[in-house]
């Protein structure tokens, strides 16, 4: 359907989007969209996240990897306002957003998905999508009675939703309840729904877990084309082939701390990473076990 896009991303891949970045923990980026400092969170005695400094380069795919329990999901929750930090601050597109609540962070353009998929099961797939559209007059209580006004927005949003559903191969399911989708399809729906908000940065927590292998390729294609549209992608993943294949940059988290950063080639040869993560377990076997669905 879109051989142009494929070519586009192939050409794009030749550019070094991380020009100038030094492969070391906390390294400075040319044009960071997200900058975090001293972000900390502990549960009882357990320090789940303790990130000294982290920058995410705009317009790249950055992978966040680390063994189970490393604090990846917790870091996502903290940065997106779904959990409260014990300390630290961070800014998105130059504006400090620490202390903002989840919906405010999303409105600022940083949208996340969840490791445990959150499809709104007793709503149709299309309704799930439409919920993502920002700035709807009809979502205000008084505005709900102005059908002519929101009806027009609804039409535009529906078109946009159908386009995305087409892209994510969910178009035939648009009238089905989201609860009737398979685990993998729910992951796709969640990602498509997040895109309805027009984010500048999308954070995906294990988007490939439970997705049918046949769909993984097209999902990867979606992720690269998001980057090629200028969006920033930060994603958590366990499949090493996937990570090495599409990431511009990799951040390695272990016991809440960033222990390494770099291009895929840097990470592959980083002894500390191999010790802490890759060497510690059978990577192939890990793929099977890491899915939540």
């Amino acid at each position, binding site marked *: 359907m879109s051989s142009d896009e494929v070519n586009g991303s192939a050409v794009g891949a030749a550019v070094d989007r991380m020009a100038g970045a030094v492969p070391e923990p906390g390294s400075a980026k040319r044009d960071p969209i997200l900058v975090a400092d001293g972000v900390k969170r502990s549960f009882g005695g357990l320090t789940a996240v303790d990130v000294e400094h982290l920058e995410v380069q705009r317009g790249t795919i950055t992978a966040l990897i680390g063994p189970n329990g490393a604090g990846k999901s917790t870091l996502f929750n903290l940065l997106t306002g779904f959990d409260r930090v014990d300390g630290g601050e961070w800014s998105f597109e130059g504006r400090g957003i620490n202390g903002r609540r989840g*919906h405010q962070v999303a409105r600022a353009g940083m*949208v996340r998905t969840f490791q445990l998929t*959150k499809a709104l099961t*007793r*709503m149709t797939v299309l309704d799930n999508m439409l919920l993502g559209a920002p700035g709807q007059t009809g979502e205000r*209580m008084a*505005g709900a009675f102005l059908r002519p006004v929101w009806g027009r927005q609804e039409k535009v949003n529906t078109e946009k939703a159908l386009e995305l559903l087409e892209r994510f191969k969910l178009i035939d399911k648009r009238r089905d309840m989201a609860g009737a989708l398979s685990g993998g399809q729910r992951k796709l729906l969640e990602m498509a729904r997040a895109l309805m908000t027009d984010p500048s940065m999308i954070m995906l927590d294990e988007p490939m877990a439970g997705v049918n292998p046949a769909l993984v390729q097209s999902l990867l294609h979606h992720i690269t084309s998001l980057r090629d549209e200028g969006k920033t992608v930060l994603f958590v993943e366990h499949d090493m082939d996937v990570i090495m294949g599409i990431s511009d940059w990799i951040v390695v988290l272990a016991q809440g701390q960033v222990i390494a950063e770099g291009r895929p080639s840097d990470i592959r040869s980083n002894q500390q990473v191999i010790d802490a993560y890759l060497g510690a377990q059978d990577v192939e076997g890990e793929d099977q076990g890491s899915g939540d669905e």
Partner: protein
Amino acid sequence: MDIFLILAESARSAVGPVAAIYALAAIGLNMHFGYAGLLNFGQVGFMLVGAYGVGISVAVFELPLLVGFLVGLACAVVLALLLGVPTLRLRADYLSITTIAAAEVLRLVYRAGFAEPLTNGVYGLQNLSTEFREWNLALGLFDPAGRYGFGSFSFSGSHMWLMTVTWGLVALMAALTWALIHSPWGRVVKGIREDEDAVRSLGKNVFAYKMQALVLGGLIGALAGCMMAVHQGAIAPDQFKPQVTFFLWVILLLGGAGRVLGPIVGSMVFWFLMNFTDKVLRGLGSEGYLPFLSGPDFGAIQLAFVGALLVLLIVFRPQGLIGDRKEMLINVK
């Protein structure tokens, strides 16, 4: 015992003002639970503040009835904010615990000695429907002395006026619910019912929506309370026991939660069955078939029957009479 007479009388009660008042309160509860997923176990508290808004305004301060309605509705907004502000950011169960306690505390406060100058304590307030009857005369709608309808379905003019207003309000609130739920606002609220974190992650202020739903459902509950005061002409605090809330839940689940017409169907069927079982039991009793039961036992048996009905409903039709199985709210695994 004439079974046809009993059926006719039960049918009368299904379309009567009490069924309408309970339908109204259940429409409010449907907004809470059916759409926003808020577990409110104190809907009777909203009815109480509505009824006493009318009662105190009219009987104590001799204000116009319309002012009484507005006072009752304003009290419902205050109550919803008091309940919602501390609990709606927390897990769902906090709201349910708070509402059940708050409704009971309200009843105890309104009947307490120190509140007597306003509420007249346990004796309650009387003479609340004079102005309501005058409205009918002023509008010239129904002749209070006349009869309307036919056979067992004939009602006095003042009864017709009362039924017109209460069922009119039911229709209005059902229409309001329909309009809201079939709008993007309703989509957000239903999304919150499914998973509030997902909705939050899409940039919606979940707390504000839950608050709006709580206030709106509470207002409709208070409106039911206002109509209760008007219908009875007198109110007393002990009419607002927790049992009323549980009747409302039975009505909602019976009709179908998350359906616009669910509370209406539920209330009509519920009051039909309540009257039917009561009259059949009493009929059997008076003819000596139930020698082991005496007067007060009938009420208890009747409630047990309602309980059994609810159990059967959950087992065989968990989505309610007109519910949609795909959108079913009770998770039956």
